[in-house]
């Protein structure tokens, strides 16, 4: 592309690479699709809602209170969003550290999903916290005794690392050969640093609850909660990879190389197998944590029944489905199990962050419509950003002029 770029004027380059070879008028007309109309409608309501929150505060825009300070924006955007965004970490470690080159074609879409997932999780956090100009504070006042400090530093660092991990695709799109070459040199260092960070902050998100033993319901509280969070985020990341690749291959099918279409079946089955093992490990840890805390004494209650729904419906059921799917080579069942697993992460994080945390609070928290709208807006922006990048940069395919070095 670089030779190509040299011979084109900036105007032509913009037309080719930003407007996909269309004139501005044609491009705008091509944007009028049912999907875009729905997305536009969500943004038309959602962006003013976010502005409203910044102007008038949490009290006006949410149902949060002193008794229920943690709501949907933390449970959904932060805890759920980050947990299912581990796909980038899983693929990078699998391919570059464990040498599974057969999964290479999934690395870039996974890193992009991970980067956007973290970015919008942090955006959600900023909306929840407010006063975004205080965001750099953890880097000025080192609160090293706090788990929150670790979470803040890790998220910032890991977001930066994911940006650099994805940068080669952007640089290839721009045709910058030299930069691509230099980026390649720091690649493996970034990957190792990133992997350490993921293991740290995913478990630290759970470790935040260690200081609330008498607040979080005992069926969810455990001294093992960091491990539970880490195990579940791996299962969630694997499941999200399967769901994401299923959608990508449908929506962006024309971009995917034929050989990758053939590989998708085997890659999906491989990820499904890994998800099965991970759910098995998670289930063991969950039982172990309950034994450790003697918490099974609380099982015969309404809360126990609700935990049963979470564990049987969203752990044991997909575990059985993954197993069955691997044994019968059924890609449909792997995908169905993945969707249930992703929903399971959602249920679990809500149970810990909102429901279990406020189980005996004097008032019941139900999200305000503006909170729902705010989260929906971030998800929509994430999907639109993913599509914008995939339609332009070499994510699902590789440019022949930029082979792996």
């Amino acid at each position, binding site marked *: 592309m670089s030779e190509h770029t040299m011979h084109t004027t900036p105007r032509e380059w913009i037309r080719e690479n930003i407007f996909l070879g269309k004139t501005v008028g044609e491009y705008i007309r091509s944007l009028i699709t049912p999907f875009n109309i729905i997305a536009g409608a969500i943004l038309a309501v959602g962006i003013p809602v976010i502005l409203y929150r910044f102007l008038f505060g949490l009290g006006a825009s949410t149902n949060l209170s002193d008794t229920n300070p943690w709501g949907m924006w933390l449970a959904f955007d932060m805890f759920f969003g980050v947990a299912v965004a581990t796909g980038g970490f899983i693929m990078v470690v699998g391919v570059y550290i464990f040498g599974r080159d057969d999964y290479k074609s999934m690395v870039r879409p996974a890193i992009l999903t991970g980067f956007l997932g973290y970015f919008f999780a942090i955006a959600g956090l900023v909306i929840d916290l407010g006063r975004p100009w205080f965001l750099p504070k953890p880097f000025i006042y080192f609160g090293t005794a706090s788990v929150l400090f670790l979470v803040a530093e890790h998220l910032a660092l890991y977001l930066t690392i994911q940006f650099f991990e994805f940068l080669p695709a952007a640089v290839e799109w721009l045709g910058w050969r030299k930069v691509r070459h230099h980026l390649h040199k720091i690649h493996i260092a970034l990957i190792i640093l990133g992997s350490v960070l993921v293991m740290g902050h995913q478990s630290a998100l759970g470790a935040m609850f260690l200081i609330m*033993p008498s607040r979080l319901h005992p069926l969810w509280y455990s001294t093992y909660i960091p491990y539970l969070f880490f195990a579940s985020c791996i299962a969630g990341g694997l499941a999200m990879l399967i769901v994401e690749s299923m959608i990508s291959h449908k929506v962006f099918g024309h971009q995917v190389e034929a050989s990758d279409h053939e590989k998708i079946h*085997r890659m999906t089955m491989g990820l499904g197998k890994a998800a099965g*093992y991970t759910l098995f490990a998670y289930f*063991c840890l969950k039982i*172990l944590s309950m034994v450790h*805390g003697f918490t099974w004494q609380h099982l015969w209650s309404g809360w126990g029944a609700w935990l049963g729904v979470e564990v049987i419906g969203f752990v044991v059921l997909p575990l059985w489905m993954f197993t069955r799917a691997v044994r019968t*080579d059924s890609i449909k069942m792997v995908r169905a199990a993945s969707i249930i697993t992703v929903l399971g992460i959602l249920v679990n994080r809500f149970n810990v962050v909102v429901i279990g945390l406020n189980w005996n609070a004097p008032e019941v928290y139900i999200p305000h419509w503006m909170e729902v709208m705010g989260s929906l807006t971030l998800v929509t922006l994430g999907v639109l950003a993913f599509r914008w990048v995939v339609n332009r940069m070499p994510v699902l395919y590789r440019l022949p002029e930029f082979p792996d070095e």
Partner: protein
Amino acid sequence: MGEYFHFVDYVRDTKILEYAVAFLFIGLFAIYYKLMQAPAQPVEAKETVVSRAINMIKGFLVPEGVSYHPGHTWAHTEGEGLAAVGVDDFAQKLIGKIDKVVLPQVGDTVRQGEKAWTLVIDGKSIDMLSPVSGEVVEVNAGLAESAQAINDDPYGAWMVKVQSPKLSVSLKNLLSGVMAQKWTETAVENLFAKAHVEMGAVAGDGGSPVSGVAKNLDPEHWDEVAKEFFLTE
């Protein structure tokens, strides 16, 4: 409301129970691991040998139940989307004793009508085309030690096994049954036509082809002849 839990970390009280649960799960995991390795209905590890309903066409084996690519390679369905592929009898007799084969690796993608493997004979390399498209899932490691097996039993010595979600599409482009027999007949006629020109008269019925026909035909440029038949010139 007002209910309140005093958290107690029962480290000592639960230790033995925890160890028991942990060991139980490690044991269960071993079982689970085995379960995940084996398919529910074990596919018979049957030898890839094609039905021996032998059809001998002018001295060349053209068994039923195999699909042939015009480049003299064959494919045989082994299971859902899985095909074993190899070299046909015509090819094997044409080039004679094979010294070495260079096979693709597991995970590689092969495409119908594109180069799949290379045969090495007397220092000359001859490419052959893949009869199907898909991903290589198994390579016949035995051939690395001795490629003689291909000459001994061309329909038993498969080269690689290919997994393809659209195997049936690949197979539709191949020749089988009567079509395969007619095609072999034509190939043999072409070969004998060449032989006639270059070797003079042969036995009235064409005789029985000997191993390494091409070398007898043209000791210098026999590889060109082979490539012409294998469509890889």
